[in-house]
């Protein structure tokens, strides 16, 4: 590796602008003549809409226009589309109810947008919205999944409250295996609902150009091309050639900025109606009730074991909350991103999972960092601890005994996936060593002297990312391909612009991608700019989520670089009077093998654009190449997380005192960025385990609707982390990379809860649902409610 190439901890190119306040986020953009939008949202969870009287509001100062769902309908515009079709057990399609941009006929959750007010200032729009009179007739509220399936429950949609009833695996083989079981471990658990909370609230500016008939949408998106496709083709019927979507600097996404939201379509459509740009920026309170939420599963799991503690079969039943409408990729999360991961790192030969997706009067639920994989990992790694307890075996030993051996790859699981590489014993051994697992009992005894309950927990996890082979996801119901696009433009002077369809909202692509190019072409990263986030600059792209930016987007860059180098060699061969086959690219120079005859990269690029002495009969002028890459398989990062906690029995407060993560993320391009990604994931995983949860009351009112109610992890809630990588290479992409964006959030929650349960074990506690708050732990320890937790 060079000082700036693959493997170097290069400091980030993007940092200067962020550190000096020169970032360019959507809310920082202002368009000439701009107006401001404010959305009137439902304050009740379920009601029919009667008359909407906007007459007073329309006369309020500064008001330009007011639109409701009826205006969208009258204009023949569509609803928000769902990008994934899941089929029921009997092969019939899932229930896919309409998702109007602005509510039509009914409101279905607190926060459902009813009307939009467009005014000269944001404050005027907000003031006017208070003057709109909406007649709502409240309906019974389906607040929880249990409510959704009660006989006689109110129907949120005409087709009822079940979205789909899906399954995967061999049910008969599973039942047969359970009949042979020596022992069975069982567990009921909840995967708590989370609110993603990227620090930048969502924002959108719609800007219709009356001269050209072109629309521009500036938006806080992880995937501007996907928004262009969904909004242009399905909602507003605007051809791609007339619709530009720009996602400039975006302040974090974590999944919540993948989806196409109502506000984007509204400001785009309405900007043509009012003939002026329209800006909307979300309040945090609005974002709590309008950003798609994450997780929210209730599951029952059983593992059958033989007399040696080998897993024979896993049986899982899960209810997954979809919220009130289907968000863009919601149906895929509790199915193909969840149940396919239930084999984990183990040789369990039979897995059978049933998943029911239910509608409730809550905000839609969709992918949030990890998306399905944290839910699968939490279930499996909690259950494996129970397996150890059931068998009277050591927690580490039962894992080792069931690991897929390192020589068994490629490994076909019973739930569709084929893992390409991994070494679970190696990541386990490394984590045990770094965490000083062997010395734990002495630390527990020492803590006990101080009156603290200390526990240690482990999770050996795996995830599937680098999504995804288009044909595979297509066969599973995806309505999009999941390839990626890169365009490399070598300029005459030899500087390079990389255009990628992926999108950086914290991941550091401007640095990592530049390293790929620097490594290959031998030029400085200062000469390389990475451009993303504008559909007018980049041919196409599927965006950034599912830890795909390097495995898929990076590979597209490598493929484009292959073409650049191939063409440059032909030009160099001509200039050096040699055969292209004899040209080598070394340290930024094209060299005739075995000679000192060479041309610098800049000389070749100049020749490409000033083709005086040039192989013009066989090689086109210019040096710019585009590549699309469709991955051959998912990638499978994995590893071992070990958490140590201390609980104060007087207060119930849990402190994470030590956290070790050893992850196999494939080849590491920038170790500094990789560690940072793991740190951030761990904070979200520990947040889920100990602090964060979304709470609705029985009337569908969101109780955790601000930072005073929803516990975001703060600096003093977390420890410093011991993070290491112990990688095997991905076998099916040229870089050998697997992805790192989600591992921290996937591996950590069960490690934390396993540690909490370990700390409480001697008091009889066998399980605690997330988040393990002080109140919950104190109650378990002090009010004789232990039995309830078992």
């Amino acid at each position, binding site marked *: 590796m060079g000082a700036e190439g693959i493997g170097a901890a290069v*400091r*980030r190119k*993007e*940092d*200067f*602008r*962020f*550190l*000096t*306040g*020169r*970032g360019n*986020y959507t*809310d*920082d953009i202002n368009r000439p003549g701009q107006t401001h939008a404010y959305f009137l949202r439902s304050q009740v969870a379920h009601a029919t809409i009667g008359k909407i009287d906007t007459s007073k509001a329309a006369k309020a100062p500064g008001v330009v226009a007011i639109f409701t769902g009826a205006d969208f309908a009258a204009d023949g515009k569509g609803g928000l589309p769902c990008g994934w079709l899941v089929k029921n057990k009997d092969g019939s399609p899932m229930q896919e109810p309409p998702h109007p941009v602005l509510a039509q006929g009914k409101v279905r959750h607190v926060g459902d947008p009813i009307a939009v007010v467009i005014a000269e200032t944001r*404050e005027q729009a907000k003031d006017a919205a208070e003057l709109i009179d909406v007649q709502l007739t409240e309906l019974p509220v389906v607040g929880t999944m249990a409510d959704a399936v009660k006989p006689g429950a109110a129907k949120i949609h005409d087709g009822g409250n079940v979205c789909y009833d899906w399954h995967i695996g061999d049910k008969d083989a599973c039942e047969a295996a359970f009949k042979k079981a020596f022992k069975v471990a069982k567990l009921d658990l909840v995967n708590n609902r989370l609110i993603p*909370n*990227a*620090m*930048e*609230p969502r924002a959108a500016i719609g800007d219709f150009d009356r001269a050209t008939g072109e629309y521009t949408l500036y938006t806080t998106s992880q995937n501007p091309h996907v928004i262009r496709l969904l909004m242009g083709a399905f909602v507003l019927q605007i051809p791609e050639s007339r619709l530009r979507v720009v996602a400039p*600097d*975006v*302040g*974090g996404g*974590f999944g919540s900025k993948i989806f196409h939201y109502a506000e984007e379509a509204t400001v785009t459509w309405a900007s043509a109606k009012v003939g002026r740009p329209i800006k909307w920026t979300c*309040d*945090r*309170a609005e974002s709590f009730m309008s950003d798609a939420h994450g997780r929210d599963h209730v599951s029952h799991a059983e593992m059958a074991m033989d007399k040696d503690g080998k897993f024979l079969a896993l049986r899982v039943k899960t209810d997954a909350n979809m919220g009130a409408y289907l968000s863009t990729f919601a149906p895929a999360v509790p199915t193909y991103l969840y149940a396919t991961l239930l084999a984990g790192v183990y040789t369990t030969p039979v897995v059978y999972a049933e998943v029911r997706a239910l509608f409730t009067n809550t905000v839609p639920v969709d992918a949030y960092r990890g998306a399905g994989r944290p839910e699968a990992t939490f279930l499996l790694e909690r259950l494996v601890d129970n397996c150890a307890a059931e068998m009277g075996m050591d927690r580490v030993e039962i894992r080792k005994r069931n690991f897929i051996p390192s020589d068994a790859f490629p490994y076909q699981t019973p739930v569709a996936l084929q893992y390409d590489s991994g070494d679970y014993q190696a990541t386990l051994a490394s984590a045990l060593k770094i965490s000083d697992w062997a010395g734990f009992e002495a630390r527990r005894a020492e803590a006990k002297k101080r009156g603290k309950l200390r526990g240690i927990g482990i999770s050996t996890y795996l995830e599937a990312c680098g999504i995804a082979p288009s044909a595979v996801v297509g066969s599973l119901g995806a309505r999009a391909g999941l390839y990626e696009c890169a365009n490399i433009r070598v300029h005459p002077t030899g500087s390079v612009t990389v255009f990628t369809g992926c999108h950086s*909202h*914290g*991941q*550091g692509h401007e640095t990592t991608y530049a390293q790929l190019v620097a490594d290959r072409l031998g030029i400085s990263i200062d000469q390389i700019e990475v451009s993303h986030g504008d559909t007018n600059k980049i041919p196409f792209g599927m965006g950034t989520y599912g830890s795909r930016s390097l495995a898929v987007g990076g590979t597209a860059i490598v493929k484009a670089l292959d073409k650049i180098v191939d063409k440059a060699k032909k030009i160099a061969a001509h200039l050096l009077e040699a055969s292209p086959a004899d040209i080598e690219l070394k340290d930024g120079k094209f060299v005739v093998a075995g000679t000192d005859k060479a041309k610098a990269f800049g000389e070749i690029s100049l020749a490409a654009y000033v083709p005086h002495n040039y192989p013009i009969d066989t090689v086109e002028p210019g040096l710019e190449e585009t590549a699309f890459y469709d991955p051959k398989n998912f990638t499978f990062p994995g590893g071992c997380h070990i958490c140590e906690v201390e609980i104060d029995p007087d207060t119930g407060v849990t402190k994470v005192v030590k956290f070790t993560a050893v992850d196999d993320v494939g080849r590491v391009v920038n170790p*500094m*960025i990789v*560690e*940072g990604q793991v*740190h*951030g*994931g*761990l*904070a*979200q995983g520990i947040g889920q385990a100990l602090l964060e949860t979304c709470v609705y009351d029985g009337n569908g009112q969101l109780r955790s609707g*601000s*930072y*005073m109610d929803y516990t*975001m*992890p*703060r*600096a*003093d809630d*977390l420890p*410093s*982390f011991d993070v290491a990588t112990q990688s095997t290479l991905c076998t099916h992409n040229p870089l050998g990379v697997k992805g790192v964006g989600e591992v*921290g959030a996937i591996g950590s929650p069960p490690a934390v809860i396993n540690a909490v349960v370990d700390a409480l074990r001697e008091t009889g506690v066998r399980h605690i649902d997330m988040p393990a708050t002080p109140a919950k732990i104190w109650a378990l320890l002090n009010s004789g409610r232990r039995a309830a937790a078992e």
Partner: protein
Amino acid sequence: MPKVSLTVNGRTVSAEVEGRTLLVQLLREKLGLTGTHVGCDTSQCGACVVHIDGKSVKSCTVLAVATDGANVTTIEGLANGNELHPMQAAFKEHHGLQCGFCTPGMVMSAVDLAKRNSNPSEHEVREWLEGNICRCTGYHNIVKAVQAGAKAMAGAKAAAD
């Protein structure tokens, strides 16, 4: 509408504002200083931290009219041209930022800590940053950056003295 005059990043500015206008709105909307961010509406997240007369303050909790005559420094006023302030440089060196949205508030808050405590412990940094939320970094590298930045600021001050 009331008129306010104040110094922002060394420049005297004046503007007409509504009584309800917040300092952060004055900075972002009237003065075009969009480096100061708004991440919440309950004064919890700290993305809007600026210095008023040298002390870190959440600019979403201050009415613009209350800053008449004040000396305000925002993230745009910290670097010396293209030369980063030691705290900014430490954030870059230690990868203390990812998406960059909480970063301006985080840096401004850290600078105030470093002025009060040139060698803060990990515990002291974590307690100080309780009012600045970051969703990306898990704080690990922010803590390292703040400690290194505080040392660098003390070193630069000693050299100047």
